[in-house]
């Protein structure tokens, strides 16, 4: 028998199952209100998006992307100026930048280029010979960003943040002439360094 205390008058007659009784309490008002509100909201929400011209997911995305695109165009213009060889050479004097580039190089590049840039699957990055570009920081930067997919060099743009890619290019440039042990034989064209 259920222990009902003062709720005896609320017990529903006949409702007894293996000793379990039931009370006839009403639905809690706040609960009912919540239910109604979610139903009303749902009807309005569904009607707005499906029948009354609310934006589709594609439209919302296109709108947000166009904002991002325009911000990006601005930023790219500035970045073009930042990429001039002179500006990049200036960075090459900064030890912090080189250190930042080294850390990323260790994380992303040594699998193919070796821990000292001596070359494994990818070419030696320390000699005077270049398959792509002419050994300047800006040409290294372009190769790293665009990659050479057919030949096994991944593109890194979008994977590594723009300022970090720059640092990596600066770091690769700084390796020039380091003559590491076990260097891979030269590939590409010899470049005259001043």
């Amino acid at each position, binding site marked *: 028998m*259920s*222990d*009902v*205390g003062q*709720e005896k008058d609320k*017990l*529903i007659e*006949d*409702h007894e*199952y*293996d*000793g*379990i*009784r*039931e*009370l*006839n*309490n*009403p*639905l*809690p008002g706040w*609960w009912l209100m*919540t*239910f109604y509100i*979610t139903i009303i*909201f*749902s*009807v309005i*929400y*569904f009607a707005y*998006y*499906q029948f009354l011209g609310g934006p*589709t*997911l594609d439209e*919302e*995305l296109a709108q*947000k*992307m166009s904002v*991002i695109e325009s*911000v*990006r165009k*601005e*930023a790219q213009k500035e970045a073009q100026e930042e990429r001039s060889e002179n500006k990049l050479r200036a960075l090459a004097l900064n030890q912090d930048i080189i250190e930042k580039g080294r850390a990323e190089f*260790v*994380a*992303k590049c040594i*699998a*193919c280029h070796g821990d000292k840039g001596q070359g494994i*699957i990818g070419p030696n990055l320390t000699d005077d010979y270049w398959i792509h570009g002419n050994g300047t920081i800006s040409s290294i930067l372009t190769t790293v960003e665009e990659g050479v*997919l*057919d*030949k*096994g*060099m*991944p593109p890194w743009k*979008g*994977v*590594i*943040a*723009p300022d970090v890619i720059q640092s990596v290019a600066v770091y690769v440039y700084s390796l020039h002439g380091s003559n590491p042990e076990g260097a891979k034989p030269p590939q590409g064209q010899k470049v005259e360094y001043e």
Partner: protein
Amino acid sequence: MADGNQVSSKLMDKIVYDDDVVKKFLFATIFWGAAAFLVGLLAALELAYWKSNLNLEWLTFGRIRPLHTNAAIFAFGGNIIFAGIYHSTQRLLKTRLYSDILSRIHFWGWQLIIVGALITLPLGYSQSKEYAELEWPLDIAIALVWVIFAVNFFGTIAIRRIKHLYVALWFYIATIITVAVLHIVNSIEIPVSLFKSYPVYAGVQDALVQWWYGHNAVAFFLTTPFLGLMYYYVPKAANRPIYSYKLSVIHFWSLVFLYIWAGPHHLLNSALPDWAQTLGMVFSLMLWAPSWGGMINGLLTLRGAWHLLRTDPIIKFLAVAVTFYGMSTFEGPLLSIKSVNSLAHYTDWIIAHVHGGTLGWNGFLTFGIIYYLVPKVWNNKIYSQRLMNNHFWVGLLGILLYYLSMWASGITQGLMWMAVDGNGQLVYPDFVETVMRIAPLYYIRFIGGVLYIVGFFLLIYNVWMTIKTAPKEEKVASVEVSSLAEKVTIGTGHRKLEALGAIFTVLLFISIAVGSIIEIIPTLSIYKYLPAASKTRPYTPLELAGRDIYIKEGCYVCHSQMVRKLPFDVLRFGQPSTIEESMYDRPFQWGSKRTGPDLARVGGKYPDMWHLRHMIDPREITPNSIMPSYPWLADKKIDYLSLRKKLSVMKRLGVPYDENMVANADIYAGNEAEKIYEGLLGQDPSLTEIKDTEVIAIIAYLQTLGKKTSEQGVSQLKR
């Protein structure tokens, strides 16, 4: 509980309950519970420290996670459901179970299926559909055992001595009918071999059917049966009447009617048509109140027994379980709101949400029921009240650590994925950086798991000692009922319906069929209306072979293949995925969790050599990766011969392969593999051993992702 009116015993029938089968299911619950929790713990450790898979293919995360989820839901959850349903139904209907034989076939059949899962999942026999991974022979076995359960249950209802069905039984009926429908519809597949099949649904259809199933597995396997158990064991344990009969009626029907629609909330912002997504969202919101109806009725039934909270650990377990049910069913609708979902989806927040429900609601309710039932059916007092208390606190602490760490992990990583700086660039473009940030939280989750299991071992010991010290002579549980037909008032309205089992069941079927039909039927013809411009080519034989290896290894548990219609997804992974891109995907591989990056557009992103080295040891390429190594892929040979059969099944399912391709699938694949192999060999002449190995097929598959559909087919948004 016999009342005082003992009349002449000639007029009384003695009914002996079958508690032996209840005991069996209780043992199974405890046994498989331990297994499910330990496998879960291993999975948790593997994400913190990948080497804990011991570099064994059977233990890699991709194969262990399905084992954990299946064991937890169907072995631990399933067995306690059966124990509780069989125990309470007999008492609620004052009759022995319909058939002793069916009860035993049900028990042993279910355990055999679990053993089958335990063997096949680690071996990689998987359909890759979440909570429905088991291959077709086991699917058939599940359907058969479920039908036996249904016959036994409805047979018991047919011979009942209590005219009206109590609310717990309504929930049991809902469970049995709906799980049968879900399982059968989601498992329609065509066998290729003994342990391989392809589903009849492709891409978006498969996604919708799967999440209609997956979501309602939560609804009708982890919610309705447990609510039924709550309605029996909470009032019994607290000795209190149910707070509101009216609330039971309203929340029951609204719950079963609304739940079935909510599946698409697993596919928000995806390529699923907008209308279906919106339905999924709003029906989830509307579920909030009906779910809380159950919580209110549970908690207010305990009202007046609050003093027991201090003295009776069983009441503590039950009260906390119901509270977690309330939390989860508030969080669920919240996560279904499209904007919240864009942050939380694919992250550990979802994992936190699920475990709040499973560890808190299902787990603690189960523990409460076990502590209530074991002394009852073994006719003894519980061995130690104190151990029960300790279990409660250790377990609760475990849940909190688990929940809070995964919640923090999910929100942290979600925010990192979303972060775009003032130049329109991702702040964290490198995916693995966002993984490293949350890795410490994986250890905290692991500790939470350890605590939960420690608590469970206390239960095992306590139950063991209770049974050991139980009186040796069996005392059969029985009840005396009048053999004369009792006069009962049938009543009107819903009360009348409760006396009409068959009509009740039919109405229930109709209420779950409505939402299912409205959502699924339109999707089945969706590919007929695709614009002609968006041509997609089917997978080549080698790509298909690679795809099946991807499925076998369970890569989908860590990798999604669905770039959502969200700016930060587009910036990171490329143009949003379209329906046509997965129109030949059987099964679909959209995924539900991004432990690793999305792979929908990984084709052409890296060279073959990169993939080769990354598959054999990801850390050679990405030093901090938590992805398992797959060296065996570079050992095992591709199973070329099965490709003919595979292509012919695909062709039967409507994939446009020509006869020649099907007949020579193995030769086609061999030629494709040769090309990739030659390319790799050109870069590294020492690679002769990888000729014709599975890794070549996986590379072919990965390189085709995002490349099979013509440019116009993919929307015009550029990276």
